[in-house]
């Protein structure tokens, strides 16, 4: 323990040099900015800014690039709350209650609790990263393909469960999402569902799908009515959460921190999964779950804490094992290699300045982000007061540029427009976009885990239920489905009894 604190002091010595402080601030600022701007994700931004770091020593370069990543998680919530477009996939779930809060004139507290929750969870996540990196990574390493498959099935089940409409429809649209994720080359190198279109060989891009489903579809829906209104009629006041908000949010922040950190260690889009799981948990634990989807502050506090804490968790496999857990981590790992540093078990021993300097900078970065985000909230709230007639062309412009910049491909624009239409029709027919997106993101990981499990078990499906961890996770998923089925039956029985009573 003393070693850890000794090393942290060394880390702070590195992180507080003027150049590192400036680079940390620059990373956090750019991260928040790209988090706020839909369509320009942290992976693309880090890749774009990599050449800027070529002339820097490794530690400052990694400090700045890491700042972009966790800064984006702070900023991602802003557009989710203010315009119902997730700045990052991890903020998709924040749209549900965050946007409803904004519609009720409570954008300030929603943004405030997102920033404070992110700060608390981000800081505590880094603390956990510092303390428990080796043992947690070791435990996660024991997850084989069956366990990874089961975790993803649980994630999808939970997500479908929390959809506001029918569970059946949520499962159906999740399966459609899987099909979207299957487009491209599979793990064996076979082209599937590409129909000979070269732009689909690498799969359908996440950014145009997100921009279409969340951005274009929302604008099309709003276009149905004559636009004469301001975005929000009521005056937005009180940027800081009140005592009641804190009371409601305290436990979700704590739970979100732990969920995010633990899920962050598991390979896959854990920032997104953790925010969805946190939301489902808060809805489940709430004494008044009917408030969820209508502007419950817990639906913002929990997921935003989870996705920030997951950032710290994400670093564990990279820094200690050299395994990137997501696209962003893969780019950051690339940055390590470009700077002549090999991430992995020997990193702490060979490059303590990078390891401890980066961790120390995360503490500082979280403080910077809180200071950056709370004053900036006012600016974004003011953006909301721009009439919708001015706002929607700009939203569409950002969607276009974001979708195009993803791969510099016009085909991505076709994909975005197509998914915009799909998203619009989905809204009209009672299908939620979130299960589709989640299934689409998870699909490659899910299929790989499924196929590896079958290979491992020589074609025996029982591998998913004979391994204790996998069985427990799948049991949990089944329990989630049964809870829904039985609560539906209970509701129908109650309705029948009420009807009979009325007739009597």
């Amino acid at each position, binding site marked *: 323990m003393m070693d850890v604190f000794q090393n942290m002091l060394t880390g702070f010595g590195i992180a507080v040099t003027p150049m590192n402080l400036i680079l940390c601030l620059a990373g956090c600022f750019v991260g928040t900015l790209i988090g706020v701007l839909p369509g320009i994700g942290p992976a693309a931004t880090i890749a774009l800014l990599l050449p800027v770091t070529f002339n820097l020593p490794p530690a400052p370069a990694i400090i700045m690039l890491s700042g972009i990543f966790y800064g984006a998680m702070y900023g991602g919530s802003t557009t989710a709350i203010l315009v119902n477009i997730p700045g990052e996939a991890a903020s998709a779930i924040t749209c549900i209650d965050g946007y409803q809060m904004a519609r009720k004139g409570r954008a300030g507290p929603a943004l405030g609790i997102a920033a404070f929750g992110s700060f608390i969870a981000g800081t505590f996540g880094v603390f956990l990263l510092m303390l428990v990196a080796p043992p947690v990574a070791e435990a996660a390493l024991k997850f084989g393909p069956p366990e990874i498959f089961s975790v993803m099935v649980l994630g999808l089940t939970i997500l479908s469960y929390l959809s506001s409409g029918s569970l059946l*429809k949520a499962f159906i649209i999740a399966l459609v999402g899987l099909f979207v994720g299957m487009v491209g080359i599979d793990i064996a190198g076979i082209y599937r569902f590409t129909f000979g279109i070269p732009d689909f060989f690498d799969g359908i891009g996440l950014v145009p799908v997100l921009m279409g489903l969340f951005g274009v579809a929302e604008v099309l829906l709003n276009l*149905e*009515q004559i636009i004469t209104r301001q975005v929000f009629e009521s005056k937005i006041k009180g940027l800081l959460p009140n005592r009641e908000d804190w009371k409601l949010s305290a436990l979700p922040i704590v739970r979100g921190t732990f969920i995010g950190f633990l899920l962050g260690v598991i390979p896959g889009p854990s920032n997104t999964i953790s925010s969805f799981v946190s939301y489902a948990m808060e809805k489940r634990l709430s004494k008044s779950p009917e408030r969820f989807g209508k502007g419950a502050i817990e639906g913002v506090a929990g997921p935003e804490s989870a996705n920030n804490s997951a950032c710290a968790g994400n670093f564990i496999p990279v820094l200690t094992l050299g395994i990137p857990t997501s696209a962003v981590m893969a780019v950051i790992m690339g940055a390590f290699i470009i700077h002549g540093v090999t991430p992995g078990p020997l990193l702490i021993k060979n490059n303590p300045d990078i390891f401890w300097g980066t961790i120390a900078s995360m503490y500082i970065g979280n403080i910077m982000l809180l200071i950056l985000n709370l004053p900036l909230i006012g600016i974004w709230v003011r953006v909301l007061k721009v009439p919708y007639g001015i706002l929607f062309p700009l939203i569409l412009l950002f969607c276009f540029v974001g979708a195009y910049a993803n791969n510099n491909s016009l085909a991505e624009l076709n994909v975005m427009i197509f998914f915009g239409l799909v998203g619009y029709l989905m809204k009209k027919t009672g299908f939620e976009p979130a299960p589709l997106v989640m299934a689409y993101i998870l699909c490659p990981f899910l299929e790989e885990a499924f196929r590896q499990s*079958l*290979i491992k078990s020589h074609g025996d499906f029982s591998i998913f239920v004979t391994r204790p961890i996998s069985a427990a996770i799948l049991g949990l998923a089944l329990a989630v489905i049964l809870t829904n089925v039985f609560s539906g039956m209970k509701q129908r029985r109650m309705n029948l009894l009420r009807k009979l009573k009325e007739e009597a």
Partner: protein
Amino acid sequence: MNREKITGIFLFGLGLAVFLKSLTYPLGTLRKPGGGLFPLMASVLLMGLCALLTLQVFRGKELDKSSQFPFFPEKEAPRRILLGFAGLLGYRYLLPVIGFAPSTGVFIFFLSRFLGKYGRGVSILFAVLTAVAAYFLFQVWLKIPMPRPVFGF
């Protein structure tokens, strides 16, 4: 036929299409699954769930509140949706022809004039300002390589 029934049948058709397409990929064996197995299983599941959905709808069960509302909330809505959609397609196909800044200007003018209901002067001003700002932000500052116009300006 209401929209729930159409949706159920359409998605069942999608499942069937994926099922048939999956058969053209190597299925492999359970010991060594091929690229077609996972989509095949997912498509069977989708068809099953869609059949259940359609059956429930035909039996008169209301799955959610979506079918209670009219498809378009007001008479003007289809025209506005078509205009919005036309704007998106127009921008997409104009972009590689006349370049980023000019096509952005046309796009913004079209949307603000015909859907935002602003006057011609305000729409032109808004379009020009946005196009110039977008050019400097995305092309000059962020160096996003937007498509080069066929006319080369």
